[in-house]
C-alpha cells in the first residue's frame, strides 16, 4: 500500500470517532401542543435531546399508553459501545500502519458487522418499547402498538414520529467508504 492508501485508511479508522462528537440517531416527535417538538438523541454512550429534561418529558407522555420509562441505565449497550468504537478505531489505525490489504478488508467487514448488529439491536429495543405495554395503562387502543419508526415517519396517536440517522452514523459510513476505497485503489497492478 502506498502512503496515500495508508492515509485513506487512517481517515477511515478515525471516522467512527465522529460517534463521540455527534449522536448516532435522532427521533423527532411533533404534536399539536408541541410546536417546538421533542427530540431524543441517541449517542454511542448516552441519551440526550433537545433539552436537558427530554427523557422525563418523553416518559411522561409515554406513560399514558403504558410504555416503560426510558432510562439510560437500562441500556448496557451505552456502556459497551464506546469500547467497541475505540477498539475499532485502534484496529483500523494498526491496519493502516501495517498497510496490509487483508487487514483492511477484515476491518471493513468488522465495522459493517458492528453497524449491522447495532441496527438490529436498535430495532429490537424499539419493538420492545412499542409492544411491551403496561396492561394498566390509562390509554388503551385495541390492537395498537407504538413501535417508533426506525427510519422515516410514522403517526403514533397525536404524535408524528420521525427517525433519522445523525452525523455520528455518518462516521461509520465514512469509515466503510474510505476503507473500501483504500482497499480498491491499492489493488492496482504496480506496473500499470
Amino acid at each position, binding site marked *: 500500500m502506498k502512503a496515500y492508501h495508508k492515509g485513506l485508511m487512517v481517515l477511515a479508522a478515525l471516522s467512527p470517532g465522529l460517534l463521540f462528537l455527534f449522536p448516532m440517531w435522532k427521533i423527532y416527535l411533533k404534536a399539536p401542543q408541541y410546536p*417546538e417538538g421533542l427530540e431524543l438523541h441517541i449517542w454511542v454512550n448516552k441519551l440526550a435531546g433537545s*433539552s*436537558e*429534561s427530554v*427523557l*422525563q*418529558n418523553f*416518559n*411522561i407522555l*409515554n*406513560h*399514558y399508553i*403504558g410504555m416503560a*420509562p426510558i*432510562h439510560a441505565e437500562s441500556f448496557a449497550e451505552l456502556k459497551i459501545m464506546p469500547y467497541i468504537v475505540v477498539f475499532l478505531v485502534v484496529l483500523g489505525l494498526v491496519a493502516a500502519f501495517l498497510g496490509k490489504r487483508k487487514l483492511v478488508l477484515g476491518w471493513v467487514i468488522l465495522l459493517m458487522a458492528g453497524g449491522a448488529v447495532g441496527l438490529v439491536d436498535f430495532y429490537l429495543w424499539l419493538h420492545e418499547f412499542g409492544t411491551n405495554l*403496561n396492561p*394498566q*395503562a*390509562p*390509554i388503551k387502543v385495541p390492537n395498537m402498538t407504538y413501535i417508533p419508526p426506525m427510519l422515516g415517519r410514522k403517526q403514533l396517536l397525536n404524535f408524528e414520529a420521525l427517525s433519522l440517522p445523525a452525523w455520528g452514523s455518518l462516521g461509520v459510513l465514512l469509515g466503510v467508504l474510505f476503507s473500501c476505497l483504500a482497499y480498491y485503489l491499492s489493488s492496482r497492478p504496480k506496473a500499470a
Partner: protein
Amino acid sequence: METRINKFKSIVPKVGLLVALAAGTLLQSCNSSGKGEDANIKESAVAADAATAVYVAPGKHDELYSFLSGGFNGQVAVYGIPSGRLLKVIPVFSQFAENGYGYNEETRPMLMTSHGFVPWDDLHHPKLSRANGTTDGRWLFVNGNNTPRVARVDLTTFETVEMMEIPNSAGNHCSPYPTNNNEYVIAGTRFSVPLDMKGGTGDASLSEYKDKFRGSISFIKVDKEHGDMELDFQVLVPGFDYDLANGGKGPSGDWVFFTTYNSEKSGTLKELGASQNDRDYLAAINWKLAAQYAAEGKAHEMPANYYHNKMDHGTHRVNSTVKKKVRYLLPEECPGMMYLIPAPKSPHGIDVDPSGEYMVVNGKLASSLPVFSFTKMQKAIQNKDFDGEVNGIPVFKYESVLHAEVKEPGLGPLHTEFDGKGNAYSTMFVSSEVVKWSLEDFKVKDRIPVYYSPGHLMIPGGDTKEPYGKYLIAMNKVTKDRYLPTGPELLHSAQLIDISGDKMKLLLDFPTLAEPHYAQGIAANKIAPNSVKFFKLDQNKHPQAVKNEKDVSVTRQGRTVKVNMTSIRSHFTPDNIEGVQVGDTVIFHVTNLEQDWDVPHGFAIMGNNNAETLIMPGSTQSLRWVPKQEGVFPFYCTDFCSALHQEMQGYVRVSKRGSNVPIKFSTGVKKPAPPATAYIGK
C-alpha cells in the same frame, strides 16, 4: 347553478377583503418610503389601513410589549402592540387568588409593611429599567401610592421580585423614576405629612399644616447586576404635594424634575385651597450632587421602621427585613442641589424631551403649555437669576428659564411624550384629545379626539432619549359608550394611534383593566429572548422542596402537619393522607416536578380559607390550611394540565382532635411507585 351562485357569493367578499388588504399594504409602503404624495388617498383609506396596521396574524407575535398600570387593582397588565392582545396580568401590590400570589407562604411576605400585611395598593406608574438612557428590558419598577412602596418586576419571569417600603412618605405618587443607568429610582411623596423624625407621621393638629407638614423625596439605589434596591437617602422638601417626576437626559442627565401643587400648603378642601396661587413650582434636583452630599457626610440619620421584601432567587421565597434607619438631606444645607421653577398652577406631568433640553410642564388648569429650557436654567443658576426662596431653596424667575409657551394647546393638559422626530404629543383631559405640537416652532400641528378624557399617553420609549415614534397609546378615564355596556362599572378604554405620519391616525380601541395611569412600551426583542420557560428543578433551593417522589413525607410537629409532596402529570404524591386532626395547621409544600414549558399544576383543597396556589414547573409553593371539621377533604390540580387532569386529585382524612389515627400517606395501591416517576435523582 344554484351552488355556483353561492360559491360566487362566498368568494366575492374574500376578494374584496384581499383587495382592501393589498391596498392597505401598498399605502403602508407609500408611507414608509416617502412622506405620502397624496394625503387624500391616505385619509380615505384609513379604515382598511387601520385593520391591517393592527392585524397580527394568528400565531405571529406583536412588535412591542406594553405595560399598563392597573391603578386601583394593584397590578400591571401586559398588552401586545399593535394588536392590543392582553398577554399577562402581573400581580404586584394586590393578592391574586388566580395564582396564589400574596396567599401562599412564599409570596405573603411580599405584602408585609410596617402597617402589617397590606393586601392591596394603588399602582400608578410603571417605569422600565434603563441603560444609557434607553430601556433595557430587564426590570419594571412600579409604585404603590396608598401605602408608600416601590416594587420591582423581573422581566425574565414577569414576577414581582422585590418591594421597598418608603418611610416619611404618604401617597407615593411621584414615583418611581429611574435615572439613565438605573443609578437611582426616585420616589416623591404626594401628601406632605407631619414627620415624627422616627420614619413615621407624627400626631399634629391638622391646623398646623403650614408649620409642621413636610414632603420627602427618596433615592433608591439599584444594584447594576441584580436590580436589588436599597433606600440610600431622602431629601426632606417643603410641604407641597409632589405629583409627577421625570429625569433629565443628555445635558440634563444629572437632574430630576418634579411637579408640585398645593404650594399654598392648604390642609383642607384642597380642590379650592390648592388652586389659589397662579403659580406652583417645578422642583429641580441635581441627583448626582445630592448623592455626593450624602456620600460626603451632609446626610443626617433618623430612626425608622420600614420593610424591604425580596424574593430569593434559589428558594423562590420572599424574605422580609425591617430597616431601622434612614439618612436624609436638608436642601437648605446643600447649596446647588435643589431649585424651584414657577409653573402654571397645579401642574401634572413634567416631561423632558429626548434631547434633554426642554422640560414641558402640563398645567392642567392652565391655558398654555410652558416649555422650559435647561440651558437657560444653567445660565440662571450662574447669574443667580432668582426671585426669592422657599425654605432656603432658590426660586427662579419664570421668564429667565422659560423657552416658549405652546399657545391654545387644548383644555386640561396632563401629560406629554415625544416621538424623537421633533414632535411632542400632549393629552388634554378636558377637551378629550391628543394634541401634536412641534419642538421647533412650538405650534400645534395636529389634534385627534380620544374617548374619553385621557389621563396619560405613552409612546414606547417616549420618556427616554430614543423614542419608538410609530405608535401612541392614549389611556382614558371615561369609557361610557365605547363598548357593549356591562352595567354601571366599565373598564377604562385605550386608543392606539399611528404617529408615523404627519397626521395622527386612530388604529385601535381596546378596554384596559382597572385604571391605567401610565404605561411603558418596549420592542419585543428586548424582552422575549430572555423569557424563562420553566425553573430548573436542580436549581430549586427551597428547603421544603421534594425532587423525587420517593422522598415525599408527611410529618407532624405539635399541631402543625407538614406535607412535602410532588405533582407531575397526572398525579400528586402522596394523594392519600391520613392522621390530620381538626384544628391542625396543615402546610402543603408542593413541588412541581415537571421540566417542560407551560405545564403548571395548581393545588386547592376543599373548604380552605385561602386561595389556590399555582406552581410553575420546577418550583415549590406552600399553601396553609386549617381544617375546622372532621371528614375527608379532596384536593386537586386546578390547571388543566393533561388528558388525565381530571384524575389528578387526592384526599386528606381529618379526624377529631386527639384521635389515634396515625399519620399515613401513599399514592397508588399495589405499586408503591406510580407508572411515571420523575427520573430526577434516580
